């Protein structure tokens, strides 16, 4: 496959994790501007594990996922009683706190004659496990695609088991949901953990693809993009945020002629989509229609 295509597809896959992470919270009724924090935590934690502690790739990425989920739950727990703008800004504050802390985080070690590890604002170089194992960008893309497919399958299962429906109930009307026996607080913390884990997984995969990460990559802009993907693509299905990523990275990055005007085109497109469909292209009404049509 064309290396450019592989790199675009890999980026789409990796940003899909972040977009899904923000989407899960949107479904649960909260906007988070801070999912990039868990992306960063996953990236740094798994990078440290594979590069410094010489753990196998899969275990390192799993560790990043678990840590992302754990921190996600820890943040969601006090934040769960906040709503609306307060939740959004609290998550943003946490993410910027994480980024600022990574700017002073140094943890370097001599591994086989190389000094490696996070070096504050200078970033974290040589997360080379994947390359040293001889995994080419092509197979690496397969790993990313399979992980993403696994996540989507899990969300599909959650939908069959009424898990997603309960999250939607919490998101739409927490008072009514509580009156119907939904333990709202637990769902909010659970959603925070799931979203943190998803972003952590994406971050772990990202760190090993890029081999170099630095705190500035995990800025507010990244987080706000993640929220926007779900809102453009649609909140009705897990395919919505992925469609959002496809529109941004896929469509616009492939049209290299537009490179200089990319943000102007993307911004205008998003503004028009949101005027026509405030809950995104694949919104709840459309998904309900399709589902009833399929059942017929």
């Amino acid at each position, binding site marked *: 496959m064309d290396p450019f295509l592989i790199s675009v597809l890999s980026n789409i896959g990796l940003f899909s994790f972040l977009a899904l992470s923000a989407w899960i919270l949107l479904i649960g009724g909260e*906007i988070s501007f801070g999912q990039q924090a868990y992306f960063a935590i996953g990236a740094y934690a798994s990078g440290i594990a594979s590069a410094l502690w010489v753990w196998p790739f899969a275990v390192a990425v799993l560790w990043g996922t678990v840590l992302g989920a754990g921190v996600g739950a820890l943040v969601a727990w006090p934040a769960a009683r906040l709503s*609306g703008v307060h939740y959004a*800004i609290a998550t943003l504050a946490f993410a*910027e*706190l994480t980024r600022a802390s990574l700017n002073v985080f140094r943890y370097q070690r001599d591994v086989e004659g190389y000094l490696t590890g996070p070096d504050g604002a200078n970033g974290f170089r040589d997360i080379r496990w994947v390359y040293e194992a001889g995994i080419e960008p092509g197979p690496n893309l397969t790993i990313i695609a399979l992980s993403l497919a696994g996540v989507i399958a899990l969300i599909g299962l959650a939908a069959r088991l009424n898990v997603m429906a309960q999250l939607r109930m919490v998101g739409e009307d927490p008072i009514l949901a509580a009156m119907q026996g939904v333990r709202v607080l637990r769902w909010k913390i659970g959603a925070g953990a799931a979203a943190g884990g998803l972003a952590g997984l994406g971050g772990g995969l990202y760190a090993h693809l890029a081999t170099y990460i630095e705190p500035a990559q995990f800025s507010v802009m990244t987080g706000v993009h993640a929220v926007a993907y779900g809102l453009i693509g649609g909140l009705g299905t897990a395919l919505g945020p992925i469609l959002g990523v496809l529109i941004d990275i896929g469509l616009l990055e492939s049209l290299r002629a537009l490179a*200089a005007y990319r943000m102007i085109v993307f*911004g205008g497109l*998003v503004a028009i989509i*949101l005027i026509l469909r405030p809950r995104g292209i694949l919104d709840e009404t459309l998904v309900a229609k399709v589902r009833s049509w399929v059942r017929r």
Partner: protein
Amino acid sequence: MLDLAQNTLDGIAAGAAYALLAIGFTLIFGVMRRLNIAFGPSIMVGVFLGAWVHAQWSAGLIGAAAATFAGVLIASVYVERLSFAAIRGDAALASMASSFALWMQLEQGVALAFPGRTTAFPTLPQLPDVRFAGLFLGGDDLLVFAVAGAVLLLLHRLIYHSHFGLEMRALADSPEAAAVSQVNTRRVAFLTFCLAALVGAVAGMLIAATDGQITPKFGLWATMKGLIAMMIGGLGSLRGALLGGLALGIIEAQAQWYLGAAAREIVVYGFLFLCLIALPGGMAGVRETGAERKL
């Protein structure tokens, strides 16, 4: 002890501009119940236009100021029409995402028009510095105080002693009640947006003129400072926005002095996070309203 006092003074000087930014956010949020995160970038469009007019015709501060006002107004009206007026109903999320999309547009537009890293902005007229009891207050800071104070007084008069202010407060209290009492909600919302733009333009101009230069990062910077100050002070309260802005300035100045630049960010965001968790009503003690819960 002297350091502490000097830092506080410096902090208040920076905080005066933050307070104006926070007030702009609060005005918009108050009447719309929606967050306009493109507020900072709209201001940026204005200051860049001001810088351009200055560079083109060496228009000086007055010319740059007029161009800044015009630029912020145009950008704000663009954002208001597309992200707020065009998206009706219970769609606070969509408005916010849409304002983010326009932010991207404004930012790239500015980056294309001004390829340099920094652009010069006319500086404030030189005033004598003030020294008393070992403390130092720059002439620039005095001017910032004076302008910010004047804006606050004017705003206070407008909001509490004019018919438009009454309509605005009615809309902020309850959109339904305001509509029933024949307030033209769309008109008031639009005018409030413009008012916020003017306040933002003053803030942007003061900041740009104090620094003497502007960068394309100004939009993000202004949105973040305004949002943080608004949330620390208490969402939806003008008094809170003022307090929050000053508090943010003081905290930054103290942290910078005692802990250094890297730690300053950690302290500010850590404080904001704890503030939101422990004191969601902010310094002004705003009680959460039903309308806000909807977002």
